[in-house]
């Protein structure tokens, strides 16, 4: 690969997570197939890891462990969590100023709506909104029973987003690849990795309207992707009920 196409100059900002979304995706896609840039990335990652040591050491209160143990008592590890919050709202309530209560109510309504949407999507597999938008739940395979995901497609099929959760993180030689199938032919719609908790949202790129494809699946492929699916299916589903 020519030097000019590498993403070396973007790697410091990439490891800090401060690239804009479009550039971040470009770098991610390049890294999936470039050993040189991945090696360079590793050296910058080591630096950002050490930045955590530069913060002043603070001691949490002794009773925090007891609170943690009480909270996890009722939680089972490796249990699928269809709806993923970025942080605990329950714990935030006591810090809310009065002016923030309205915002909290809005957030709670959105969470309830999202849970409801997820449940309906899971039941129906394909949920069509009045405006024509579709949300499709994907099925996990026996390999990764905890993985979950869904696809949201715009009314005209020109835009689509995949969101996955609880996916295993892969080694540096592998990548997830999304496949769209039509008349028995599969084309690649995205290459992606997941964050440390197995979560990722990624835009689906297809040459034609997503409404023309009959099914979707996600497999594990060698870095850089494959021309056609070769790995085990992790998630999959029919794009339409018919």
């Amino acid at each position: 690969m020519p030097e000019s196409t590498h993403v070396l100059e973007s790697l410091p900002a990439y490891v800090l997570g401060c690239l804009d979304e479009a550039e971040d995706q470009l770098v991610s896609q390049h890294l999936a197939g470039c050993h040189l840039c991945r090696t360079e990335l590793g050296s910058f990652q080591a630096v950002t890891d050490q930045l955590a040591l530069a913060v002043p050491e603070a001691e949490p209160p002794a009773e925090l462990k007891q609170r943690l143990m009480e909270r996890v008592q009722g939680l089972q590890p490796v249990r699928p969590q269809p709806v993923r919050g970025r942080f605990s709202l329950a714990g935030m309530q006591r810090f809310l100023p009065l002016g923030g209560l309205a915002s909290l109510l809005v957030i709670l309504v959105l969470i309830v709506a999202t849970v409801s949407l997820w449940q309906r999507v899971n039941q129906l597999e394909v949920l069509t909104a009045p405006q024509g938008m579709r949300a499709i739940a994907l099925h996990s395979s026996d390999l990764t029973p905890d993985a979950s995901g869904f696809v949201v497609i715009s009314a005209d099929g020109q835009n689509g987003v995949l969101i996955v959760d609880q996916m295993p993180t892969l080694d540096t030689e592998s990548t997830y690849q999304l496949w769209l199938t039509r008349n028995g032919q599969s084309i690649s719609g995205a290459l992606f990795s997941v964050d440390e908790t197995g979560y990722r949202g990624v835009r689906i790129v297809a040459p034609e309207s997503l409404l023309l494809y009959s099914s979707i699946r996600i497999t594990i492929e060698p870095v850089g992707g494959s021309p056609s699916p070769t790995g085990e299916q992790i998630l999959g589903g029919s794009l339409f009920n018919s």
Partner: protein
Amino acid sequence: MRLIAQAQMDAFGELYDRYKRLVFSVAYAIVGDRAIAEEVTLDVFMRVWQRAQTYRPERAKVSTWLVAITRHQAIDIVRWRKSHPEADSLGWDEISLHERPAHHDPREQVELSQERERIHKALAQLPANQREALALAYFRGYSQVQIAEALQEPLGTIKTRIRTALQKLRQMLQED
């Protein structure tokens, strides 16, 4: 982590004891409020409890994994609370780069202490404007565009500062 994925509470407790200071310190440095840092710490360890099976030792050290989760959780809260500027997170310049952290277990902390000293020394050698840009990215989760807006500098200047800062740090830390 394997034992935690098997719901072994004892292993989970040991993990907490070992990394509680690291997680709490990073959370506190980002959110700037002890009570909220406690909530972040609880959230981080609850996520670890529920998602221990997603940890891959070949990809990252446990501490790296925990710090990554902590930063995400804490920065999310900072973004959510950005209308409340009274709760500011720290920056490199608010941190005394020559501060000596309190040691709780000298034998276990010697290596950590040396690591801290190395990174403190390296950060202290960066120009203030590079530390500032780095701090906004690391502690606030700002994008380069947001950093440029916050500092009223051209985007290209900020990109150069971020890139140069990390390159210098890498060089200094590798030389040590």
